[in-house]
């Protein structure tokens, strides 16, 4: 393998691509982090510098909640570019997250976002599997294999030797990039360890599948043909087809349908709510009544909105489960899901942010309504500081690990399948 010129080409290609993607990812992350920090600080300034106002009026003025990116986005941006990073929080309504960055990019550029995660899971497996396919078939095509076997070398040992040599070489070649990534990502050992396991597994799978195909192919050309076709299927065809199929299987209602269902639920609970308000009217008056009425309305609006969105959430959950199981159909999908889970750039991580923002919204609005209930008709300068700022809390490690478990299992199964694929082949000369 050392004499093979292709390894040198692979080294240079990998080094250039990985380093450029790492720099690109880091730039992107730094720009986003600076923007979000600035926005959060400015938003807080706007909130605390309000003119004297009625607390409920201020809840309509609202606040923006921004998601501070994690350094891991530099490694794997995942779906973060397709989802919003800011939510406007106001009373009576749950707004969607806005400002996805993909909208500003020309459409054809969507397939490839230069990041280390993308390079290591898309380009590297292609190169490695083609190299693996070539390393066995070139021995066979040139007749060296016959010579080697005549010396008493076991074909299985030779094959495994080739597999582990290439696998090891890839790891050694990628280690400087991974070391730099480790330093950038802030040295979180557990998460980085899981990332490394996933990466090692996906490289191993590429090597095993490439070798297994070449063991079964008539010649080098056929092996390369099959390897390329398989990579294409795993990396493009299957993920795209699966995403489309799950969209059809689990259709979620659009916003106007949810709004309609919200209106229906509101109508159903109208009488009970009205009697509750009448009750309040009998017991309280003035701002104490207003505050309690606003609080009751807010509670009902939030409950109704959540009840109306529940069927959609169920559909989304089912669709996500189906997509997650896609890791058992394609090792690329499993490895990408693992990376996204670890980098918190998956759709679950986005939901975590939106849920957190909406919970904050409810507390913030009710805090203002309670202030009104307790007779504070006007908040002045200094009072605004009583509302705590929104600070995004990343997913807890247990949740990340739970999310990462399915793709890790899928990668483990793929590795086993890869070994079986190689070992079950008949060594043809």
């Amino acid at each position: 393998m050392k004499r093979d010129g292709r390894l040198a080409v692979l080294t240079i290609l990998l080094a250039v691509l990985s380093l450029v993607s790492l720099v690109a990812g880091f730039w992107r992350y730094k720009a986003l982090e600076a923007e979000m920090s600035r926005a959060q600080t400015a938003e807080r300034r706007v909130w605390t510098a309000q003119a004297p106002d009625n607390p409920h009026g201020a809840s309509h003025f609202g606040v923006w909640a921004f998601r501070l990116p994690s350094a891991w986005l530099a490694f794997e941006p995942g779906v973060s570019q397709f989802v919003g990073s800011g939510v406007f929080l106001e009373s009576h309504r749950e707004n969607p997250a806005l400002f996805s960055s993909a909208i500003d990019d020309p459409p054809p550029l969507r397939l490839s976002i230069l990041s280390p995660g993308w390079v290591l899971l898309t380009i590297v497996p292609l190169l490695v599997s083609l190299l693996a396919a070539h390393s066995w078939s070139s021995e066979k095509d040139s007749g060296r294999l016959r010579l080697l076997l005549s010396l008493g070398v076991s074909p299985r040992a030779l094959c495994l030797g080739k597999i582990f040599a290439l696998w090891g070489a890839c790891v050694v070649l990628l280690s400087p990039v991974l070391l730099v990534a480790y330093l950038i990502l802030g040295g979180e050992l557990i998460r980085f360890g899981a990332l490394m396991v996933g990466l090692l597994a996906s490289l191993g799978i590429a090597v095993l599948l490439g070798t297994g195909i070449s063991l079964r192919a008539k010649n080098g050309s056929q092996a390369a043909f099959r390897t390329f076709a398989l990579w294409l299927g795993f990396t493009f065809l299957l993920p795209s087809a699966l995403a489309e199929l799950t969209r059809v299987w689990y259709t979620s209602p659009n916003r106007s349908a949810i709004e309609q269902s919200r209106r229906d639920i509101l109508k159903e609970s109208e009488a009970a709510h009205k009697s509750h308000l009448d009750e309040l009217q009998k017991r309280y008056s003035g701002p104490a009544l207003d505050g309690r009425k606003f609080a009751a309305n807010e509670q009902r609006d939030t409950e109704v909105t959540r009840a109306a969105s529940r069927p959609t959430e169920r559909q989304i959950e089912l669709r996500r489960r189906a997509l997650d199981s896609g890791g058992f159909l394609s090792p690329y999908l499993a490895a990408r899901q693992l990376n996204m889970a670890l980098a918190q750039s998956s759709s679950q991580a986005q939901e975590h942010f939106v849920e957190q923002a909406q919970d904050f919204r409810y507390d913030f609005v009710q805090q203002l309504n309670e202030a009104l209930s307790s007779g504070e008709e006007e908040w002045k300068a200094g009072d605004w500081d009583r509302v705590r700022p929104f600070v995004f809390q990343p997913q807890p490690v247990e949740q990340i690990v739970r999310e990462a478990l399915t793709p890790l299992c899928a990668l483990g199964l793929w590795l086993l399948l890869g070994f079986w694929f190689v070992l079950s082949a008949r060594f043809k000369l």
Partner: protein
Amino acid sequence: VRTLRYEWKLLARQGVFWTLLILLWLCSCAAIWQGRLRVAQWERRQQELAVEETSRLQKLAQEAEALKADGKEFQALKDPRDPSEVGRRLGTKTLLLPSPPLFVLSVGVSDLWANIRLLSTDRPLFARENSDLDEPEGRLHGPMDGTFVVIVLLPVVLILLGYDYWSAEAESGRLLLILSSTSAARIFMTRLLLRWFLLVLPMLSLLVGAAVLQEPQALSRALAWGVIALVSTVPWLGLIVWVGSLGRSSSWNLLVLAGIWSLSLLVIPGFLQLFLSRIAPTPSMVETVLAVRQEQQALTWEKDDALKEIYVDHPEMQTKSPLPRAERSRLRFTAAERAWHAARPKLEELERALLVRESLAKRWSYLSPSLIGWECLSHAAGVSRHRYIEFHSQADQALEQWNQFFRARVFSAEPFHDYTAIPSPVWREWDWRLGSLGKELLFQIGLGGLLLLLGLRRIRKMERGVQRVSL
């Protein structure tokens, strides 16, 4: 004809060809099926919105008439006679973008950009994004549409079927025999063209036919789309001929062609995105938010001044209001206008920056045939960004018209009854011509033709060399 018949017999026995052909057909059928579902979903949603809007406005008009007849007092927030509430919330309308002419074939940016705009005096500022509850993973992996089949899959299938057109003969020992005849170039070209025709033409006919069945008025566009798709395969054909003619081994050819395909589709776009974001940065939307927030905050301090400012320009609007909360409505209206005017320069700057980035992307896309093909197909299908920018610009004009209509009514605070007079803007279709893509198409044909000629020249040269030796 004899060569053609011979090649056909060879092809008929080649299982790989038929497998790939079936796979490509299956993918095309899946893309059409998905496309039809997308169109149906889009139209159903727009229909639902239109029905809901009509019934809501009719109901409001009836309620307003009934309240007028009864002479009832105004009810806060839900009175259909309150012009402020009608223009803001109760009587809102939507400007709908009809489904793109060839949506069945291409998704383009339609899953990212909003195709519905709410007309309200609250003036929703950040409305260009599609915030529908789609699974973002679907966006990440790219939709499987006609464009995906033509740009991603078709070149791969062409490569897989043609990479060894020369080397396979060399490796089997038949090459010298073929080259010693006077028709080597004809044999190779017949082989490749036959595969190309059998793969490309029926598949494109299927896609174009499905688009015409779905949208019969879009016949010319669908044909143009088919022509663009056909042209976008020419560079790949040229490349296969040229790489094969270099006389290297089959695996080498496949590696090089697969490498060029990855470069064209994955690596160059990735680098280009990085490059464009550095040389043509777009202003951040968050900055726009902050500009609006600062304006809103300033307004909390200048409530009275803001109203006075308007009364200086429109003294006729300063009336004693018969409505409760009339002052509040005026203030709300003014606040929305001021926020809009604070955001406008930033949003216009963003639109300008997007167009600059778009034109730069167009210039640099000559680095990759896949990028050019994708861009041209999206344009022809009506799912390019230009149509959406036009839609949002028309929506902004409609909002201006909407506000003008309600401004006088909000400030005069007269009870509102004239529901039939509420503006109903209609989308004016964005003009598109195939000629606008002439340069890109010529480039594709030129590149493909050049590579084809270079390849053919090499084949002829070798053919002549072998014939000279045998003589």
